[in-house]
């Protein structure tokens, strides 16, 4: 019995020393696998970014209408921002082609948000945009209650929770979880014109936190469009001046998908930029294709280089160990056993590198997920997550397979070594 254990230990030791020797020669797999890990998580994050982006997710009978020469939605009004004027929006609404038209609206007012916590008041100027409740309603249940009421419901970006809690921490207040912040009372102050001038008009409203979101990429707050309209009307009634209401984007549902091309043509005549589901998917799949073809290219090069180097070094190993292999054959090893021994060895080395490559790749991701937004702010909303255990498993399998396949031909050589020649000297 313990002789069998001795055999196992003996074989283990024999393989172990060989594996150590092969480790150096297979170093290239590390690059292959770590790049693979980066590729997988990059792809995942882009996919989930596109999928999770509320405004990029169009149904087949929906179109996205943007101002001329604009590709992305500008939630915040900046100097020089392009917009769809209210009049154009009304023209579109009156077109018989559409079942419904909703949008993201902006107003030419600044907004100051004020909140009170334990007797301390905080004031903050934030960007604001309006979203039609009907638009949100069709996309998520949670926002059904997002109507123009008092207190005014506002939707804030998720990151503002951390921001608030940082403020609280400065005043020695314990962090407050998201659920408890919902319903938190706020005061909204809309103002137009420069401070201390005749033109300065302010409007105060009671408001409350409706919910937090990370699917809308806005560094401010969202209120119902109807609420913005109400302010604009009030301002007009009092001053006979426009409040600067406009749309950053409109989403329109068509009655007849077959007529979509004509409708799009008509809208283009109005000087608008139209995107359909096809355009959006084309855009994203184009991005995917670029990522895919670039990554696959790099992976292919790494693969080629590693397998050549593994192949080469195993061939050398076969040559160096040819005497041993042929001796084993003479003493009773079958060809298959030598073949398997060799492949097992390279697979073990591959698995080792799969593991190492996985961790290296994740380390690189960890480093760059912090750095990327600093270099490329436009990518800041993409969160690159480290890959999970399923990728680890995949890495080990792929790496072992690459290594084993590269070692296959040398292994066949090893099992077929001209025995009597090899042991003669």
């Amino acid at each position, binding site marked *: 019995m313990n*002789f*069998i254990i*001795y*055999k196992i230990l*003996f*074989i283990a030791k024999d393989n172990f*020393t060989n594996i150590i020797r092969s480790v150096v020669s297979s170093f290239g797999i590390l690059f292959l696998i770590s790049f693979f890990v980066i590729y997988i998580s990059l792809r995942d994050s882009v996919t989930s970014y596109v999928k999770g982006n509320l405004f990029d997710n169009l149904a087949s009978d929906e179109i996205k209408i943007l101002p001329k020469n604009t590709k992305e939605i500008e939630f915040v009004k900046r100097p020089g921002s392009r917009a769809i004027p209210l009049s154009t929006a009304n023209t579109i609404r009156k077109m018989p082609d559409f079942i419904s038209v909703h949008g993201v609206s902006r107003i030419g007012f600044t907004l100051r948000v004020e909140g009170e916590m334990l007797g301390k008041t905080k004031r903050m100027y934030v960007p604001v945009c309006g979203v039609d409740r009907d638009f949100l309603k069709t996309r998520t249940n949670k926002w059904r209650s997002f109507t123009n009421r008092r207190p005014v419901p506002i939707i804030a970006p998720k990151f503002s929770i951390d921001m608030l809690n940082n403020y609280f921490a400065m005043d020695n207040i314990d962090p407050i979880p998201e659920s408890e912040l919902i319903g938190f009372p706020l005061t909204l102050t809309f103002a137009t014109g420069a401070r201390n001038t005749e033109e300065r008009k302010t409007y105060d409203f009671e408001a409350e936190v409706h919910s937090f979101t990370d699917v809308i990429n806005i560094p401010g707050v969202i209120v119902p469009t109807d609420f913005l309209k109400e302010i604009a009307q009030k301002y007009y009634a009092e001053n006979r001046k426009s409040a600067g209401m406009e749309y950053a984007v409109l989403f329109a549902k068509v009655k007849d998908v077959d007529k979509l091309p004509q409708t799009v043509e008509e809208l283009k005549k109005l000087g608008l930029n139209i995107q359909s589901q096809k355009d959006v998917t084309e855009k994203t799949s184009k991005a995917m294709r670029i990522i895919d073809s670039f990554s696959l290219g790099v992976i292919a090069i790494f693969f080629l280089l590693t397998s050549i180097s593994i192949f080469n070094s195993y061939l050398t190993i076969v040559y160096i160990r040819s*005497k*041993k292999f042929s*001796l084993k*054959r*003479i*003493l*009773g*090893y*079958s*060809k*298959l*056993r030598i073949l398997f021994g060799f492949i097992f060895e390279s697979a073990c080395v591959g698995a080792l590198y799969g593991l190492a490559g996985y961790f290296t790749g994740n380390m690189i991701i960890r480093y760059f997920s912090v750095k990327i937004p600093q270099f490329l702010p436009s990518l800041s909303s993409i969160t690159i997550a480290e890959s999970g255990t399923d990728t680890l498993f995949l890495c080990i399998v792929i790496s072992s397979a690459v290594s084993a396949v590269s070692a296959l031909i040398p292994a066949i050589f090893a099992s077929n070594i001209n*025995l*009597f020649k090899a*042991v*003669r*000297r």
Partner: protein
Amino acid sequence: MLLSVENINLKFGKRIILNNVSFKADTGKIIAITGKSGCGKTTLLGIVSGLLNPDSGKVFYNNKNILRWGDFRKSHFRNKEIGFVFQFFNLMPDMSSYQNIIFPALIRLFPRNVKKELNSLVEYLNIKDIINHYPTTLSGGERQRVAIARAIINKPKMILADEPTGNLDNTTAEDIKNLFIKLKKEENMSLIIVTHDKRLVEIADEHLHLENGILKKQSKQKDTKKIKAVKTVKKK
């Protein structure tokens, strides 16, 4: 009959190495094969052990044609039925004498416990003191005794030896010769010895000579004369 080799033909390229070679070997018998360097003696051993395939012919072991077997069966046959001894010993340099000796026993899927055999072999071959040494630290004679221990650890019925004394001094070669006689008499093994060494030819029950691919039986008397003649020529 333990081994019966029948009408073996083998060419390497256009060169005929073995031309209709036949011979028999029985248990408890020693067969010596002589021939010029490069005439095909080692090749013949390769065929007998199933490591090389001839162009035609048959090799019967216990009345079974081993050339028809698959690689697994041939490998098992080599492991169980044949012990190899070489001129240059061919020990694994990264294994101790002990590991080298039990190596053939470990090859089997469920290895037998060979401790007992090993102990008696160690006595038998007088290698007790060097059992834990590595081959590079051993003398030629010691290495060859370890190699012989390895060859017989699985109690094979047949020993194939390729110039076993070719690299040893006179006294050591004498020891090995006596060991072969012992294996023949006490273990009833069949030994096929490829050699130039006249002492080994002398102890053989049968002497075969390979020349130009043809294997011929030599009468024992002729042998001794021939070898003596060679010796006298050399002396001059």
